[in-house]
């Protein structure tokens, strides 16, 4: 999902349950992208899949949104991350890249987010050594825009056992321009898309 060398993809769109589902496949590379857009043109989910050397499809990687629960229960190791742990959920809004971290009851001064400029990554640290995450913003990587500490804001919601940390990263102007142009591709693909079931002629 960090690849910037992808050829032009073939995009198809379909309306499913009030959401616009956009599927793009990138020719011979075997890379596939699926997006879901809400009614008010917000990106709810974007996931990527590629193939390995032996042409086996890999698991979906979620850039935005969450994998369905139990999605990786078919691994042979019968071991899964417990639900009591902090976990990382990328989200999106029109102005910001958002990252929700849930199950973090500790107050706001427990967290720092810095930018590792050598690796072009953001690092979230907790001072009580409970959670740590290195992450990149795929959209920035694809356009080769360096991450910037100044665009970051942190917010913690601890009331009502919400225990949520929100990292927001202000989208730079280049990103907003690209997103606007991608809208056109979507509208084009959507022209043929109908709501509901696809026709299946029985003849």
């Amino acid at each position: 999902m960090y690849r910037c060398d992808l050829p032009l993809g073939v995009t198809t769109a379909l309306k499913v349950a009030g959401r616009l589902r956009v599927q793009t496949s990138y020719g011979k590379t075997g890379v596939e992208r699926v997006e879901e857009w809400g009614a008010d043109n917000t990106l709810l989910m974007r996931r990527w899949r590629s193939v390995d050397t032996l042409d086996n499809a890999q698991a979906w990687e979620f850039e935005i949104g969450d994998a369905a629960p139990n999605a990786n229960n078919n691994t042979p190791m019968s071991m899964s991350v417990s639900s009591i742990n902090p976990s990382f959920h990328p989200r999106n809004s029109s102005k910001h890249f958002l990252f929700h971290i849930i199950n973090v009851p500790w107050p706001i001064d427990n967290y720092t987010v810095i930018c590792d400029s050598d690796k072009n990554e953001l690092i979230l640290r907790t001072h009580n050594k409970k959670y740590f995450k290195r992450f990149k913003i795929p959209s920035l990587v694809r356009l080769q825009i360096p991450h910037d500490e100044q665009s970051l804001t942190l917010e913690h919601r601890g009331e009502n056992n919400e225990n949520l940390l929100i990292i927001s990263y202000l989208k730079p102007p280049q990103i907003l321009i690209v997103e606007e142009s991608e809208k056109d591709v979507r509208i084009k693909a959507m022209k043929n898309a109908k709501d509901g079931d696809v026709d299946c002629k029985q003849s």
Partner: protein
Amino acid sequence: MSDIKLTNTTSSAEVRELTRLERIGAHSHIRGLGLDDSLEPRDVSMGMVGQQAARRATGIVFKMINEGKISGRAILLAGRPGTGKTAIAMGLAQALGEDTPFTTIAGSEIFSLEMSKTEALTQAFRRSIGVRIMEESEIIEGEVVEIQVDTPAGGGEKTGRLTLCTTEMETVYDLGAKMIEALTKEKVTAGDVITIDKASGRINKLGRSFTRSRDYDATGAQTRFVQCPEGELQKRKEVVHVVSLHEIDVINSRQQGFLALFAGDTGEIKSEVREQIDQKVAEWREEGKATIVPGVLFIDEVHMLDMECFSWLNRALESDMAPVLVIATNRGIAKIRGTNYKSPHGIPIDLLDRLMIISTSPYTEAETKKILIIRCEEEDVEMAEDALDLLTRIAMETSLRYAIHMIIAASLCAAKRKAPEVQIEDIKRVYSLFVDVKRSTQFLMEYQKEFMFNELDNGDDEEDEDDSDDEEEDMEEDEDDGMDE
């Protein structure tokens, strides 16, 4: 002071017992070719003794295989029985390491009712060609903080929790029964640093964390201390793995649908499948996704192959995907199987012409003694010096294999009379209890008359012969009836 020493030795002995899972085989003392960096053979090293010339030659073969450029060369190891031909091949396999495919078959293995001779040989050839594939895999690497296992009161599957940490974070994992079993088997305890491969679930113990180094004193000499891992628990790692062409063949030749129910064994693989795979592998090579690792095919007792196999080998060796072929035989001038012609080593001249021949020479007395000492160590047997001298003499007069087989028998004799080490009397006792080939032949020549079926030569005792023949025929008929039903 003495107490500490005692505990140390016992714990290390215990560790050794635990780590040894394999049984002691005929060549399990061989750990390599015993060559130094300039490929010169050391006198006694890695279980190898003597055979300097043969080992020097094998060293050059080793270099050739390692560079991986030359395909389809064949090396013949020729020599009398018990001169270390198989040992040299095993040493070569060990020296090449796990990543180089090394297939060992015996010449008679290819004669099977399930597949043709050439199919069996093709499979053996393709087993010896590896394809190195790069893949990214996810691993979990961390120090164990706590393992907690709950056994439900009413029976049922165990559940558990594993807490892992790095210097920066901590995560709790829910465990299923399989994982709990795996963790117990690996004896993972709090303070161990482990990695878990996400795809296969394989657990690897890296060592104990430095922070736990003063927890208790009873650590064995083998315990390794490592730093607690840094950063995130889940890491992506480039892993390289080698699969053989045969494995790719098998995966792609499985029948689909209900036919798969009946296809227990792989059986014969269609040549179309092979062609497709060769093409695919060639594509991967061009794209840089995979590299070819040419390996070694070792055929022991090669004189058991017949004329067809030899001519098949002639052609197969010319392919650029052929592995390096190492064959061994103990025959002199012998009949080629499937023909009436005689040829050196029982191998046709045209194939012999393509071989580089390494010959092994009989061991000297001093070398024989060293081998026996190594075997005594391998089988954990203490032997007195004079007993060893006697055993060496027996080995020189009879055969090395017979002497090696006497070691464990003699040690059991010694154990029976509660002696700490094997003495001359044990060797003598075993020598009298078990006869070697020479004595057995001599005995047979003297008392041949008293064994069954010797009448055929002599022609007397006709009555007895008839009786026994009738019985045999009856038996055969019975068997036939059973088959019909």
